[in-house]
């Protein structure tokens, strides 16, 4: 694939992620922190986010199993962390799901929590898949394909 084609494809992919409401401005903010010395900064941050997220998702899954009654405080605390991490990478839709979950926690609504968590996991998986494809393409095309600081 030639350079120009790569560039167009990456730009289109990124635009699509924004159009679908999956990413927000924070993602762009992170891209602007990249430079020649740190060309993969966003991918590194997102990878850290995946690590945190996997751990938090497991913990929340576990906490949701410990019913009678559900520990809403614990769930809210875990979700606060998950939300923070998602927000830091610009994961707009996932962040919205986190907020919904927290509302159910505060209302003491166990069914709501469980439903919204299932939805959240789906959104998270979908975003992750798309970002993995995006970064793969971006890496192939080289660092100048993403927004770069002029230093």
């Amino acid at each position, binding site marked *: 694939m030639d350079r120009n084609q790569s560039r167009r494809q990456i730009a289109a992919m990124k635009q699509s992620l924004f159009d679908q409401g999956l990413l927000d401005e*924070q993602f762009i*903010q992170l891209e602007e922190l990249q430079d020649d010395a740190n060309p993969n*900064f966003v991918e590194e941050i997102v990878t850290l986010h995946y690590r*945190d997220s996997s751990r938090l998702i497991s913990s929340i899954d576990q906490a949701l199993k410990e019913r009678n009654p559900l520990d809403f405080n614990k769930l809210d605390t875990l979700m606060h962390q998950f*939300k*923070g*991490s998602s*927000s*830091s990478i*610009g994961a707009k839709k996932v962040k919205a799901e986190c907020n919904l979950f927290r509302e159910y926690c505060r209302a003491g609504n166990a069914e709501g929590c469980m439903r919204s968590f299932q939805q959240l996991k789906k959104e998270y998986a979908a975003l992750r898949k798309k970002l993995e494809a995006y970064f793969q393409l971006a890496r192939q095309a080289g660092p100048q394909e993403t927004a770069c600081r002029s230093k």
Partner: protein
Amino acid sequence: MAAASDVFMPEVGSGKLHVLAVDDSHVDRKVIERLLKISSCKVTVVESGSRALQYLGLDGEKSSIGFDSVKVNLIMTDYSMPGMTGYELLKKIKESSVFREVPVVVMSSENILTRIDSCLEEGAEEFLLKPVKLSDVKRVTDFIMKGEGKKGHKRSRSDDYSPPSSSSSSISTAFSSVSHPCDLSLPASPSALLSKKTRLSI
């Protein structure tokens, strides 16, 4: 013994602020570190309030006699952390005769007015909403590099340390006004606008 003025004034000629960043989130630690490095700061990042106190020598482990304080020009801390919150860390810093003059910026993903007010009242320089942007960090570091307001004045080492309350109140009036969002008659000083801005942005 280090004078308070030594630990917060940027060293003449060194050009770089030394910032201590505190956050329990690995992602956020990495981001804040990058933001600070881009803003030409030397950065030390720790994962908790207790680690921060350890780093500063405020954990009671070291004798204050003969201990050379680390030189820190700014502390940026997350609010919600397990164990010690950013607020509790802020209080401990402001209680310290060595570090109470160091500006402390609190960061939080939650725009809660009572939280913002308590931090500002406790002497926080600024309250930033997460996710923190490069423009936020640049603004804060520029402000401090210029040796803003009270902190810019020269103190001799023989100055007696006044009790925390009097110095923090003058800092509060200079930079961290406890304005309410509906109070639109505020003077348009940068700090008042900053406080307003951070509160009003959702």
